[in-house]
């Protein structure tokens, strides 16, 4: 069951009195949402005349008495229904006189749209207190429903008050508004985001589904942020992602062009280096860098992309890996998306760590294989590896990491080890750590990258 559908089931169960909804299995999240909207309107309209009179009658009594009777006698469901019929200022006055646990119960039953003004006017400290009750109850669905109606400052205060990052993840997974979700992720400090993703292992590994659900709703930049963080985490976290992906039918893969059975990436580097030495003169003639931007793109499309080696690293999977100029990410997405159907494409994650003691977040991409003729690509070309994480919703979660060749060369030049790099590649079969020995690789890194200068 997808996160969106799970959230809708929880909300619909509340509308229909908590009964088993197995007979609605044929409906997807959108269908359940439409049904819930319709049923809420039907049931509310039934009671509206009486509820309207209750709202009118409440004005005949002291506010303190109405609050007391509301909490002790009326109960959360009826108070939730009446709230939308009260003047916002009066409803706010009542709400502030009620206990936090009761407000939490009302929150679970209320339609936020009918009480948006009231919710927005409640002081942040009360919101935080009610949020604490909801978290204690594990009612993340309700918290997510109110994100749309709270100010960024209040949301920030609530985020600060939630100590457990996994709780934030669970809330985020149920947020319906993508705009608000992006705001929420944007407000999350880098360290907390890292902690959140790092916790996705062991008994909490299945929460990767929630992380993927969130990632689907984000834009490329935010996805990239999450992806970069994930890429820096310990292998156990990524293994948990792979395990969850396999268990729930989520495709996760990264292909590296030119990765072959014999030497993997090392072979690619060697081939490129040889190609440069052997075809130095040709490099000048074919250099896309010497063309205008449009011409360069044509050369890239015509020569380089078809030359890239497409190889499935796991059974039943196929994914092309493409390179991209840094200004043309959309083209890569489109190309990759077209060639890997039904797997959708995004831009990448792949991290190359230079030994354990020294990580380089810039690592990746240069291991794309191109034909010798294209080895003279201009020096400012950035390259990305295309990878895909798909979800049960058929959405995709792409992580992008572009490589600046100059940085890559600098790092390689400073390498003093015969085993400078460890490539960690995620495949459907798990995390493959491709380590040397790479007997064919030169111990003088500069020579390997002569082609790029």
């Amino acid at each position, binding site marked *: 069951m997808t996160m969106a559908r799970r959230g809708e089931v929880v909300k619909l169960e509340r509308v229909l*009195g908590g009964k088993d909804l197995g*007979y*609605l299995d044929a409906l997807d999240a959108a269908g359940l949402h439409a049904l819930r909207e319709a049923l809420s309107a*039907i049931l509310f309209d039934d009671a509206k005349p*009486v509820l309207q009179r*209750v709202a009118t*009658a409440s004005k*005949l009594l002291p506010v303190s008495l109405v609050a007391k009777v509301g909490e002790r*006698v*009326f109960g959360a469901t009826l108070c939730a229904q009446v709230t939308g019929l009260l003047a916002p200022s009066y409803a706010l006055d009542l709400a502030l006189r009620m206990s936090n646990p009761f407000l939490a119960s009302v929150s679970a039953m209320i339609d936020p749209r009918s009480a948006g003004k009231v919710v927005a006017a409640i002081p942040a400290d009360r919101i935080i207190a009610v949020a604490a009750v909801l978290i204690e109850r594990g009612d993340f669905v309700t918290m997510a429903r109110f994100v749309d109606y709270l100010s960024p400052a209040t949301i920030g205060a609530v985020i600060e008050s939630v100590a457990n990052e996994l709780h934030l993840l669970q809330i985020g997974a149920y947020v319906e508004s993508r705009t608000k979700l992006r705001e929420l992720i944007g407000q999350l400090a880098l360290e907390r985001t890292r902690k959140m993703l790092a916790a996705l292992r062991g008994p909490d590994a299945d929460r990767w589904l929630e992380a993927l659900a969130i990632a689907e709703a984000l834009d490329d930049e935010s996805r990239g942020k999450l992806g970069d963080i994930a890429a820096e985490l310990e292998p156990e976290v990524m293994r948990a992602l792979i395990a969850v992906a396999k268990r729930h039918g989520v495709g996760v893969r990264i292909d590296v062009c030119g990765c072959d059975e014999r030497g993997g990436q090392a072979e690619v580097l060697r081939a490129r280096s040889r190609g440069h030495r052997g075809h130095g003169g040709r490099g000048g003639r074919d250099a896309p860098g010497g063309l205008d931007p449009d011409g360069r793109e044509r050369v890239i499309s015509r020569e380089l992309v078809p030359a890239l080696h497409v190889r499935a690293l796991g059974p039943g999977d196929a994914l092309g890996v493409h390179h991209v100029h840094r200004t043309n990410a959309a083209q890569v997405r489109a190309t990759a998306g077209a060639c890997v159907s039904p797997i959708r494409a995004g831009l990448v994650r792949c991290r190359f760590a230079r030994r354990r003691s020294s990580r380089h977040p810039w690592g990746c991409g240069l291991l794309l294989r191109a034909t010798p003729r294209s080895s003279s690509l201009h020096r400012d070309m950035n390259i990305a590896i295309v990878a895909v994480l798909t979800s049960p919703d058929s959405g995709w979660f792409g992580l992008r990491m572009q490589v600046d060749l100059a940085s890559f060369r600098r790092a390689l030049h400073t390498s003093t080890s015969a085993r400078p790099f460890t490539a960690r590649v995620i495949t459907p079969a798990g995390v493959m750590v491709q380590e040397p020995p790479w007997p064919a690789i030169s111990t003088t890194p500069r020579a390997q990258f002569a082609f790029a200068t």
Partner: protein
Amino acid sequence: MATQRIDPLAKEPGLADAPAWLTALAPDDRATLLAAIETERARRATELRSAIDAALEHVPWLLRVALRKVLFP
């Protein structure tokens, strides 16, 4: 003479237009849904009336009479 099946859910005012999601449900499932709606509707009506009666117990009798006139004209 062929009989035309009339979907009982179509009688619901909010569902009369037979939205796309409704057509995705099998006839038996629609009947179950309709029963669930009726049950919940009855439950809420009972709950509302009981809550009002109980609430009125908390106010002085003179005010209670006035409130009853407002609530149940």
